[in-house]
């Protein structure tokens, strides 16, 4: 099987990730922070190590400001719902995932409004448009770093500088970029960053985080046992315990630590360069085939390792079905939980065939995909 669905989750996972999860389950097993016996201490150390590695990856931020979550979606919900109040206005883009758009839609009933800034047909945001859609009550910019449909990167540095100038908070959805690109929130004026452990960080599913810059507070969305300040029924105020009630996915975090270590040993820049090189070839060669429509920026160095295409006359799920059934190639068709992004690039409601590569994707696998698409085009009536 040729796996080209890394934007959904990376696969395969490094062997060291699998070993770490297995070792945790076989040899540690205890609940982190819930006792003082040696196994519980070791479990706590696993979680602390993962948090430290994440903090280091993000440019040396304070580890206590990294809240462990089960996913990017949970992190985004915590950020939006923990931060916003009735009367607040949010600026976001037309390329967002439903993990931002659905919480914002839900918050409308609480009197929190938002504006989706239209992006270009390539799916790119003009930073000048941010200023144009400002309102007096605007408090937050919520922006995806890279589209999960086209791979196109948003102008984060410019938007961050603008947010700082205008006194707005900036929340970044890093689902497609954490671990895929160097990403340092403090350098980019990012106040909140949500990210997954199971995509470019090569960890298992069920891991994610929310970074919140020092000095910025959030309301809790759930309360409960934290293993700390148990004498009080009030939720503790200390970070990150305040936001981590309930047992953490410690085996998953053991795996995530090894995933982060693997990414750092290979080098974030080196992985990004590899993905850009093979995606440039894919984009160029698919672009030469009559009957193939490509979406997103042509400048692949302005993208992460994801691109979208369609074959004229076929539904995206038909192309994906053929690739799976006849060629053993795994891609994701449809709307990718990002209907607004597809409306922006002109592929709604049909969707697109999304190809997303990982650090282990080879050029031969990309060539196999190109050959398969050529054969589909030849067979099509």
């Amino acid at each position: 099987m040729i796996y080209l669905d890394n934007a959904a989750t990376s696969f395969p996972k490094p062997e060291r990730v699998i070993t770490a999860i297995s070792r945790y389950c076989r040899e540690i097993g205890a609940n982190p922070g819930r006792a003082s016996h040696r196994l519980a201490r070791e479990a706590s150390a696993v979680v602390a190590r993962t948090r430290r590695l994440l903090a280091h990856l993000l440019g040396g931020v304070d580890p206590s400001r990294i809240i462990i979550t089960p996913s990017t979606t949970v992190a985004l919900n915590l950020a939006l719902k923990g931060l916003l109040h009735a009367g607040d206005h949010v600026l976001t883009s037309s390329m967002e995932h439903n993990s931002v758009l659905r919480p914002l839609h839900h918050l409308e009933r609480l009197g929190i409004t938002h504006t989706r800034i239209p992006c270009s047909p390539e799916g790119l945001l003009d930073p000048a448009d941010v200023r144009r859609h400002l309102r007096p009550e605007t408090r937050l910019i919520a922006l995806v770093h890279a589209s999960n449909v086209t791979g196109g990167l948003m102008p984060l540095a410019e938007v961050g500088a603008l947010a700082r100038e205008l006194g707005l908070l900036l929340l970044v959805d890093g689902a497609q970029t954490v671990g895929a690109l160097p990403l340092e929130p403090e350098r980019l004026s990012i106040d909140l960053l949500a990210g997954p452990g199971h995509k470019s960080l090569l960890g298992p599913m069920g891991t994610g985080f929310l970074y919140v810059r020092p000095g910025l507070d959030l309301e809790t969305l759930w309360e409960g046992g934290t293993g700390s300040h148990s004498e009080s029924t009030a939720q503790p105020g200390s970070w990150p315990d305040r936001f981590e009630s309930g047992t953490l996915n410690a085996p998953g975090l053991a795996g995530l630590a090894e995933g982060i270590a693997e990414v750092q040993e290979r080098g974030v820049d080196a992985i990004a360069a590899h993905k850009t090189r093979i995606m440039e070839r894919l984009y160029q060669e698919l672009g030469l085939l009559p009957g193939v429509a490509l979406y997103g920026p042509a400048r692949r160095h302005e993208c992460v390792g994801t691109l979208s295409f369609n074959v004229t006359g076929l539904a995206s799920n038909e192309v994906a079905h053929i690739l799976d059934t006849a060629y053993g190639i795994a891609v994701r068709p449809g709307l990718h939980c990002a209907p607004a992004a597809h409306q922006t690039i002109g592929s709604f409601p049909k969707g697109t065939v999304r190809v997303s590569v990982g650090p282990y994707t080879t050029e031969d696998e990309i060539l196999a995909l190109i050959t398969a698409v050529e054969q589909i085009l030849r067979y099509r009536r």
Partner: protein
Amino acid sequence: MLLLSEEPKENSESTMFLHDTTVIPKAPSEIDSLCEIVQVSQITKSGRKSSPVAVVREIPLTIFLNDHEIVTLLCTGAHVESLAVGFLTSEGLLRDRGRLGGVEVDHSRHIVRVSSSEDAAFAERLLGRRIITSGCGKGTIFYHVLDSLQSRPVEHHVPLRADQVRHLMGELNRRSELYRRSRGVHNCALALPEKIVLFRADIGRHNAVDMIIGECFLAGLSTQDKVLLTTGRITSEILIKCAKGGIPALISRSAATSLALQLARDLKMTVIGYVRGGNMVVYAGGEHIEP
């Protein structure tokens, strides 16, 4: 010998069948070869009696393409060459008539071997595999991707008048000698607006359509200026066979199904059903039918 008949109904084609049955004194020999005579008990209001009755023949027919076993169809055993070629073209395994090698029939073992220099590996891998949609985005309404790959919206329509439709359906029924004899087959025909050009009958309505499509493929006969007549329901399978065979319109004495009509709308095909007693139901493509 007992001739089975449909229950007579006022203003129905079955009434005509009864009438037609009475005017055919003896079935032709080809029809004899497709029927077997069995002894049955006939129970009527006046009692029970033993009678011989004609039943249509059913055989398993196995189709090979370049020594790959593709499918076993149940059929009457008539026109097996065109049935095999029609099935293979309908399924997208044969596309280029110029690369067809030969069609060998082993009548004793009910096997048809078709050879072609086309590479059918791509289609074979997809044959019969259903597309599973994820619910994320508007997917295809085809359930087999080979159907989608080979079906394109109709570009040239066949204008028809209602009286031509009535005449063609009457003609389809008049030709159905095997049906009158056995009541065990569906009839199918390819027709120009004014006349039937090819008639086939089989126990499977799909087979009858495949025979016609196979005959057209073998003879290089154009289909885009013709319509398909059938006695069977217009289901998605029948409609898709026509779409892939380039036939723009279907006419039936029976009804159409919902999925067939969704596909007909997408493919801009004409569908007329329930052609009985001078009436008809135009399900799709009404703009091409003159009352």
